[in-house]
């Protein structure tokens, strides 16, 4: 079949979809606005739940997309998407017009901007960082406070930007709990003298082997879990972070001083995705992610025929789910192109 597919976004979902489409014989244009492919995965040190190196998955995706049928356009964004009959004309920022028989949108997610939770003081207090910042520290091998010393007492706040009407995100980002547990374990490995506290509302360990990781965090690493949403953080004169939380299972307020506070930033519809929605006329749902045609059996289908959705641009997903979702999108693309071919021939 001599068909062209444009895949928007070269993160995990986009790379998987592009690779599989190429294997199926399609000519693929893979568009990425960043200078390199890989998406958020590039910034992640170890993956949950098995703690493998993120680079291994990157390597798999890189190999998968090394295919002559894939043309990678990095540093490129989308200006326009016009629909004429069964063809989508995709205009890129370099002025090129790509004609596509189908489009796969894989624009992914943005991390919640933690400074929006003003009461935690991210961007104000020196020793408040995000899960992404901590991942960067793991990559560099240097876990340090603002003054360069190693922290001894570290707090991890779950649900930052998730399950929170105040920032307009009613949904659960699903992966922050397990990220918190993974990062807590890593902290204890890097800094064996440290104490780590996780402040959670519910432990949502819904993935394969997640609960086991949680158990290991308690059993092997002595990480403390305190049920309560941190209400505020403030900075003491010695640059330590003071927090206030309710120990809800005792029903009393608790205060604690910490060297470092890590905010588990949730996932939001990406700014890039919002732009694509606007230029292509794609619908978004209540949570601002792309709206899917059917929650149960049409999660790759958008409101437009021929434009398919893959990965975290429709909802928070882990890497396993993202890859599966991208493959499912490829299957939808194949069915769709077969049926349009039949219509034309018939």
């Amino acid at each position, binding site marked *: 079949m001599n068909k062209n597919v444009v895949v928007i976004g070269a993160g995990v979902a986009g790379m998987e979809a592009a690779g599989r489409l190429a294997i199926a014989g399609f000519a693929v244009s893979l568009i990425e606005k960043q200078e390199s492919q890989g998406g958020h995965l590039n910034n992640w040190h170890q993956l949950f739940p098995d703690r493998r190196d993120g680079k291994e998955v990157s390597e798999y995706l890189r190999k998968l997309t090394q295919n002559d049928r894939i043309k990678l356009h990095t540093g490129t964004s989308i200006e326009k998407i016009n629909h004429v009959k069964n063809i989508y004309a995709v205009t890129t920022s370099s002025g090129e017009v790509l004609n596509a028989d189908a489009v796969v949108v894989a624009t992914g997610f943005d991390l919640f901007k933690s*400074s929006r939770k*003003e*009461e935690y*003081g*991210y*961007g*104000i*207090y*020196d020793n408040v960082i995000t899960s992404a910042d901590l991942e960067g520290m793991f990559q560099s091998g240097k876990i340090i406070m603002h003054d360069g010393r190693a922290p001894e007492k570290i707090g991890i706040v779950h649900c930052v930007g998730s399950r929170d009407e105040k920032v307009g995100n009613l949904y659960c980002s699903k992966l922050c709990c397990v990220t918190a547990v993974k990062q807590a374990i890593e902290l204890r490995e890097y800094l064996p003298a440290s104490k780590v506290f996780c402040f959670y509302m519910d432990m949502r360990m819904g993935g394969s082997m997640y609960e086991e990781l949680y158990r290991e965090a308690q059993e092997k690493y002595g990480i403390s879990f305190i049920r309560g949403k941190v209400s*505020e953080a*403030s*900075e*003491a*004169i010695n640059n330590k972070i*003071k927090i206030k939380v309710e120990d809800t299972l005792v029903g009393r307020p608790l205060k604690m001083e910490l060297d470092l506070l890590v905010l588990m930033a949730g996932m939001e519809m990406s700014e890039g995705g919002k732009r694509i929605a606007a230029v292509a006329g794609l619908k978004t749902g209540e949570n601002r992610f792309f709206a899917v045609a059917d929650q149960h059996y049409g999660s790759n289908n958008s409101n437009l025929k021929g434009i398919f959705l893959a990965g975290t641009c429709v909802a928070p997903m882990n890497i396993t789910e993202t890859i599966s979702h991208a493959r499912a999108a490829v299957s939808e693309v194949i069915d769709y192109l077969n049926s349009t071919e039949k219509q034309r021939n018939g």
Partner: protein
Amino acid sequence: MKIDGKRAIWSEYQKDIEEDHYFYVRSCIRQNFFPGSEVAFLRIMRDVLKKDVYEHPCHTTCSGIGYHGDVVPVDTAMTVVARQFALMTEAGYKNYVPSCITSFGLYTEILETWHHFPEVEERVRKHLRNATGREFNIPGNLAHASDIIYKFRKEIAAKAKYTLVNKETGEPLKVVDHIGCHYSKMFPSKGVGGAEYPYVLAGMIEEWGGEVIDYPERRHCCGFGFRQYLVQANRGYSVACSREKFESMKPFKPDMILTNCPGCPMFLDRWQYVINEMEGTTYGQNGEGIPVFTYEELAGLVLGFDPWDLGLQMHQINVEPLLDKIGIEYSPEKKFSLNTDPAVSKVKHFAKAVY
């Protein structure tokens, strides 16, 4: 502490504050405890900034303390407030400026409620008609008196005689700001700077040369708690809240506390005296406590008003060490003088004048 992070938040919470023609309503607590502050507000607005501020002789309490003491039902409070709006409407004003934070919070809450539940507004209109025959318009602009001083902080700085600087060392004074809870905790978008890092007082401190001190319990309530202070048996709670703040600010060695709420300056002042009596602890650097000011008192001081015209003799904590630190001139013997001094003529006409 990264000030840029705060500036980013401050820039997101700017509110519309009108330029002129204000309908001013007084605060019950402030009239009793800080009469000099309300006089200073009118002196600054009318004499220094040449603004039109109108006060209606028939305005009353908003009933806020009774409302938050839970003896005044919500419909009653709303109708008392509606009557104040009616006076404003009748006087031809649109810009409503309460002196009290609890009032400001109550007005904001009521306007929000009416916005979301128009049937409540209709009911209140009917109540007011039945009780008084009055009709009202909703204010075009609602700003607290501290918002107004904030708005004109640069103009005040331009005319200032003093800055918030230690005249011996040239160092800026360390100033702790304390915002009344009802200023923006209920509706962050209604306060300059929002709820977490309010800028309304910080902006004045910065503009007038001081250094803003952020300490861990900055956002904690002073402990008024209405019934928690009004009834003697509950005052242990009230003083404990203030004590928590003093303990938390202690390592930062503040020179003074600046407030924008009626109750807070009184409590933060008096509880220092009580804690000293009960436990022997004195806060502050000079062994004489941390002086607490209202924003009008501070504005008056930098503009060169006489400290005793501002009513600083009504504070329990002596203000003289701080005045000396800034280099403000004053006459020690006039502090408790009750004589009708020539200075009084400066302030006296603000008692009655309706401009």
